[in-house]
């Protein structure tokens, strides 16, 4: 009896405490409706957008992009570069606390950078040029390069598959495995609280956060946690995400479909947040196998047949959400160039037919691999198939689901073209088309020459010139065809304060209150 009574009292006290804590938290818990369940939040290892959106609140980097996409020192205080451009010495902020209470030192940074170089999703892009990474003081890290690398600072500021800083013991223990949720320890303004499958991932405010006090600018500057907690809740149906925000069950919902834009833009119950960074459709061509493998004139004929505006209008709809832009970077970006883009979106079937005949095309079916998981991909492929038929080019659509497409496209004999899309990136070095190992396997001599010029220097002007050459070459050898820029949009409760009008790449919630 006594034990029962004891249990009862203990139970009630626990329940009471739980209610109190929850009440305190729910007052300022932001509820974010996500499109699905995120994969691992170990940002070094994966490139999923949702993982980055969530993880950037917990994990920080040496540099961070400002609103013009220029990397600014973040956990770093700045750098000195030797005259030959081969030795980079980075100073670190002192007194930065990890979520486990330890102070961040050069050892943590070195261990994190090394692990990313060896196993990280994008580590190979930098590590091949790196001779050594060493701690040259408690708050100083020195990176020695084999050859100058112009993209290093952007790479150290890009969290998507990038070198976020973890405590040394955690990265060392994890090695090539993704870090387990209980070890999600970073330096960010929010820390990991819990992950319940299919229900939510919850981050809570980190009280000992040591941030910058410069004004917030893009992802750089101060990151003040005004909210007590952020819950990321999977709500796969877009209609439910919208109704949920209208009903006040969610404060923010991501990836709303284009066809709802016209209705939602005037709805006083919510605010629209357009992405400031477009994603763009790409149609890759197979350089290893099949009729397109080395027939550049035939590839140009395919390109000449396509009317991208038509494809964008069909697949996206609302004009405010797309732009038929042939440059790989939007106008105003430091990497914008119109080199080669006269070949973009010609939509000229007669010319394409002539070009295809001249290229020796004999009507062999061209296998176009596309998935139904992304409606825009499938709509674009359907439009292209029709446009190419008008030019006498015979397309055989291979329609599969995304997981199958990922597997098939790794096999050169399974496809001639495939449809995908590309996220916004701060530096052309991150373009999948420039990666020799990416399906399509574009690795011509002309590319190698320009690539060397592009990556082998830190001089921005030289790099921009080389990039213009590369973009022109993409329109000449057509390893991939850009469909156009698509601006996704999210919706938020009007009660949220501190959200900008647009999001840069991933929406963030430091500096936001409700």
């Amino acid at each position, binding site marked *: 009896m006594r034990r029962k009574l004891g249990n009862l009292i203990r139970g009630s006290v626990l329940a009471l405490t739980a209610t109190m804590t929850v009440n305190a938290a729910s007052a300022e818990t932001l509820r974010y409706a996500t499109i699905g369940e995120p994969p691992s939040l170990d940002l070094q290892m994966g490139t999923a957008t949702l993982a980055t959106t969530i993880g950037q609140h917990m994990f920080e980097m040496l540099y961070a992009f400002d609103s013009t996409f220029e990397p600014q020192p973040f956990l770093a205080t700045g750098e000195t570069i030797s005259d030959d451009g081969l030795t980079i010495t980075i100073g670190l902020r002192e007194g930065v606390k990890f979520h486990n209470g330890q102070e961040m030192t050069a050892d943590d940074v070195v261990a994190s950078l090394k692990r990313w170089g060896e196993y990280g999703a994008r580590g190979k892009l930098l590590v091949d040029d790196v001779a050594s990474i060493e701690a040259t003081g408690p708050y100083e890290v020195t990176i020695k390069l084999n050859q100058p690398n112009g993209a290093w600072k952007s790479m150290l500021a890009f969290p998507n598959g990038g070198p976020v800083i973890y405590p040394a013991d955690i990265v060392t223990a994890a090695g090539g495995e993704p870090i387990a949720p209980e070890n999600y320890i970073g330096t960010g303004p929010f820390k990991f609280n819990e992950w319940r499958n299919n*229900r939510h991932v919850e981050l809570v405010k980190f009280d000992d956060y040591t941030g910058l006090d410069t004004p917030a600018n893009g992802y750089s500057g101060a990151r003040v946690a005004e909210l007590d907690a952020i819950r990321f809740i999977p709500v796969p149906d877009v209609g439910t995400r919208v109704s949920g925000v209208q009903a006040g069950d969610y404060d923010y919902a991501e990836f709303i479909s284009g066809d709802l834009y016209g209705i939602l833009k005037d709805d006083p119950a919510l605010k629209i947040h357009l992405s400031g960074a477009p994603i763009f459709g790409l149609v890759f061509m197979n350089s290893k196998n099949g009729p397109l493998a080395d027939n550049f004139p035939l590839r140009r004929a395919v390109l000449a047949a396509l009317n991208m505006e038509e494809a964008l209008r069909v697949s996206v709809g609302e004009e405010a959400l797309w732009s038929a832009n042939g440059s790989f970077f939007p106008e105003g970006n430091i990497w914008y160039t119109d080199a080669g883009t006269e070949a973009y979106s010609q939509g000229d079937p007669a010319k394409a037919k002539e070009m295809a005949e001249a290229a020796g095309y004999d009507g062999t079916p061209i296998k176009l691999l596309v998935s139904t998981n992304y409606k825009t991909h499938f709509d674009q492929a359907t439009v292209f198939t029709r446009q190419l038929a008008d030019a006498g080019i015979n397309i055989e659509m291979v329609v599969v689901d995304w997981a199958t497409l990922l597997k098939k496209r790794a096999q050169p004999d399974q496809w001639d073209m495939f449809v995908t899309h590309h996220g916004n990136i701060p530096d052309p070095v991150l373009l999948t088309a420039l990666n020799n190992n990416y399906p399509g396997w574009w690795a011509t001599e002309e590319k190698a020459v320009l690539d060397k010029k592009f990556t082998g220097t830190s001089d921005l002007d030289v790099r921009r010139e080389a990039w213009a050459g590369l973009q022109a070459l993409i329109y000449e050898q057509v390893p991939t065809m850009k469909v156009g820029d698509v601006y996704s949009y999210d919706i938020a409760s009007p009660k949220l304060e501190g959200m900008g009008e647009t999001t840069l790449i991933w929406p963030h919630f430091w500096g936001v209150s409700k």
Partner: protein
Amino acid sequence: MLIYILRRTGAALATLAAASVVIFIFIHLIPGDPIYVMLGDEATPEQVEALRTRLGLDRSLPVQYFYWVGNVLQGDLGTSIFFQEPVTRIILDGAETSLLLATVTMVWIVLLGVPVGVLAATRHGTWIDQGLSGVAMLLASIPTFWVGLYLILIFAATLGWLPSSGYPSVFEEGGISNLRYLLLPSLTLAAPNAALILRLTRASMLDVAKEDYVRTARSKGIRPRRVVTRHILRNALLAVVSAFGFTFAALISEAVVTETVFALPGIGRMVVQSILRRDYPVIQGVILVIVCLYLVINLLVDISYRFLDPRVELE
């Protein structure tokens, strides 16, 4: 009775063994590869191979099958490739939502389907019967996602009476009042199923009403209400009860659309997401559990016949 149950259990185990082979083969026959889904766009071939070896997916299919069955026999359904968590835990996480949703839905189905079916049968041929049958036909034909979205739009977004989506466990803050999150989803899911039960009850009542013993009962001067409840309904329920069993099992596996629309953390949505991710251990585990559920329900339905109709011999 005991022998009957033992024999049926034996048969169920044999079915289960056969099902395990079929499940395994079919899942691995789907093209696609969890490794590419996990590693994303730019994984190098070395990273792909390293992960494949780590997950044991480089072994031959029969070897993988025997590993899986061996572990299942020890109560271990494996580890999710995507979540890196035991499949048993993932299923238990989803089971609460799925079972509660199915139970609440069953309550609606029984409360709405049976009495209205009886009403339609007793008013056979009148405008009441035709009206009710028409409504039932309509409810059975409207797609659940449409019903669900409209219920959300009316009761959550416009009136604000009920939450739009999600389901916090009844074991959490809010306790039993969290069941309100299941109100709209259970109505959505109940609509087509209640309509079917209604039609089944009505049809089976009309069948039984033509039997000789019903005529005899009537001619003996038994009150009409008593004829309906004691003579017709009790016999008509036999078919309806077996439908209850299968409906309940189907509610677990078919709730996918409802779970997706209402963002419920149930088993149905979990399995569909896992198929898209090619998370083999989760798909296998969930389907195996659902097969078990069907087998158990089947057995219970058969046993319940014995109680509803003493003439049924359990052989």
